[in-house]
């Protein structure tokens, strides 16, 4: 098992702890449950605070960050949290792992150029939409930057079959007449199935189908070799910038 070792200073809190991948996944879940409501999935929702780039303004060490998580910051909106030393440490380890993973593309792209690629060369709108513009055949990406991080988005662009979120799986139905339709599964119940394909939303009675089931492969093409490294970075930067529709 790959072990992520972070040299944590010799404080009583986190003295030289090695965090396993599982610990970091726990830290990720704790972050989602405890921190993300205010800080956002990317750690940058609070103005002037960016948690996922390995630099912290108010703490020089990892156990200092863990102490802030536990005790809060008096006089600010940051409350104390009832977490053990290990739990707080695993959150810090998670934040460090994100910072270590990043760097391949994030921060190097240009959002405006990425938007142009999304709407032009990349032809992303053939399947995807952003803020009510584009196709609904694929997932709506209006808030993709709030739920996916840059490395994950880069992986999805280069290897679309590598990880498909459950809500984005492709479904295939065959009617009694032999017509085959594939699309994104929206919903199913005891009697019916709803898909989204190029024709729009479609509904089928299960009783009228010969077969139905998920398709393992994503309909999304890989952009490996189709975009330059800079274009890829631009596109990822644009996607990361999509945080949903902001209220005024």
């Amino acid at each position, binding site marked *: 098992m790959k072990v992520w070792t972070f040299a944590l200073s010799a404080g009583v809190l986190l003295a030289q702890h090695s965090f*396993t991948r*599982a*610990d970091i996944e*726990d830290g990720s*879940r*704790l972050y989602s*449950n405890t921190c993300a409501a205010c800080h956002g999935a990317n750690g940058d929702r609070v103005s002037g605070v960016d948690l996922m780039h390995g630099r912290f303004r108010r703490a020089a060490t990892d156990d200092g960050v863990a102490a802030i998580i536990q005790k809060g910051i008096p006089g600010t909106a940051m409350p104390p949290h*009832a*977490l*053990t*030393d*290990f*739990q707080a440490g*695993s959150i810090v380890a998670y934040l460090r792992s994100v910072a270590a993973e990043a760097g391949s593309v994030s921060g190097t792209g240009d959002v405006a150029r990425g938007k142009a690629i999304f709407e032009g060369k990349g032809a992303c709108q053939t399947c995807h939409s952003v803020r009510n513009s584009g196709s609904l055949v694929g997932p709506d990406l209006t808030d993709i930057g709030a739920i996916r991080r840059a490395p994950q988005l880069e992986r999805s662009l280069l290897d679309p079959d590598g990880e498909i979120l*459950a*809500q984005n*799986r492709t479904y295939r139905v065959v009617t009694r007449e032999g017509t085959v339709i594939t699309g994104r*599964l*929206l*919903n*199913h*119940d*005891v*009697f019916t199935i*709803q898909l989204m394909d190029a024709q729009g939303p479609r509904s089928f009675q299960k009783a009228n189908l010969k077969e139905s089931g*998920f398709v393992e492969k994503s309909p999304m093409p890989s952009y490996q070799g189709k975009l330059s490294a800079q274009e890829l970075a631009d596109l990822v930067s644009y996607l990361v910038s999509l945080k949903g529709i902001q209220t005024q």
Partner: protein
Amino acid sequence: MIRRTLLLVLIAGSMFAQVSFERILNAAKEPQNWLTYSGGVQSQRHTGLTQITPDNVKNLEQQWVFQARSLEKFEATPLVVDGVMYTVQAPNDIVALDAVSGRVYWVYAYIPSPAARPCCGMINRGLAILGDTLFMGTVDAHLIAVNAKSGRPIWDAKVANAESGYALTHAPLVVKDKVIVGTAGGEYGIRGFIAAYDVKTGKEAWRFYTIPGPGEPGNQTWAGDSWKTGGGSVWVTGSYDPELNLTYWGIGNPGPDWNGDSRPGDNLYSDSVVALDPDTGKLKWYYQFSPHDEFDYDSVQVPVLAEMQWKGSQRKVMMWANRNGMFYVIDRTSGEFLQGKPFAKVNWLTGFDEKGRPMRAPGKTPSTEGTLIYPGNQGATNWYSPSYSPRTGLFYIPTWENTSSIYFKSPVEYVEGRQYTGTFPRMTVSFRGNIQNQITEDEGYGAVHAMDPKTGERKWEFKMADVTESGILTTATDVLFVGGREGNFFALNARNGSMLWKAALGGIIANGTISYSVNGRQYIAVAAGNSLFTFALRQ
């Protein structure tokens, strides 16, 4: 004029007849009413009404809808007394309605303390009635008595501290001159208890702690001070046997939920059924379904009581489909384990020893790397009411089949009023439910499982696409009503599971269906989303 006034008083009086405890004990003799959470103290959720049959159920049509002013799940089972329906609009508004038209007579609005913090929604599962008094537990851990005629409060008893995580979410149970409730809050390191209150005054009569204190039998099953924060919540209504004078209650999980290192031992009486003397609260017997639980397998299900021939002799049994995936038959006189068989996919045990203690499968405990356990954290069933039909002899279980969770172990520390659980498991099926359902049979599905209690074998299965939180109602004509998260409401043939009728109600069905009749017409009432729907045969 005087005569007319007298006549009006008499009519009004006949509308709101007193509900004596004698009537509650004999609820089966007046199937036009629904007098307790589960339809009677035996909790079979079976109606004696016969107007709706397998042949004519296809002619059901909607009569009225009550739309609650609440976005919480509608988990309350209504009561119906002589043409008046009483239900709860979440979190704690009591609503009295005309059971024929759905028109509201009155609303008693209770505003819970902002300190209320029930783990899983600001919900309520229903009421109890005695005389002309309604009883409701509140999410801020009060027990309220309200006049059933006027909706005016009578008394308000503080049961526990909401600030410490205590809440009351289940319908109370009336036994004789006492109203009995238990405390929710198992995710907050509470020390759970069941308590009885005088129906007239709200004064506490007795209290049974679900976790024994020092010097009491069972305290040795907790290490150190872990008994003080061991959970053992109570959040579903119990049952009562008047011949044995015993009341039966299911107890919730031990805390912290997913890391048992701080509480080595069996952790009595978590995940148990306890049989109590309703006059004193003294424990007569217990049976523990899941000793030293680390999977959140609350034994908070409705104890279903019946008399049946068991291997040649007549026995007073209790049937219990547990969150841990096992279907039990227990002798309710003594607590003797008679049978335990899986009703869904299970991998945490290999069987039972001769005393009925489960034998754990090796390696099936939470771990740093994660351990895959069937059933998953929400269980193979949960608080959803099952039904027993004395006609078919079958026990019907709202089932989550083939669901699993990966359990992780991490350190956890108790802080009063905060969640005290450990790492939340990774589940294949959402805890809350999604507006769209995309889960597959590989990840789990909802079902009704019809079990023969005499053998523990499954007789039939009715599959749904999404999971179900619905209770089940069976009728004396062998019709079974059930719904699911997908918002479909079904009438099935109770003998073979075939579908007879359906209605798409468009919201999660998460309460127990009831039946009642007014002026000779039989009604079916079920909640979906935040609305209560009623059906009757087309006229």
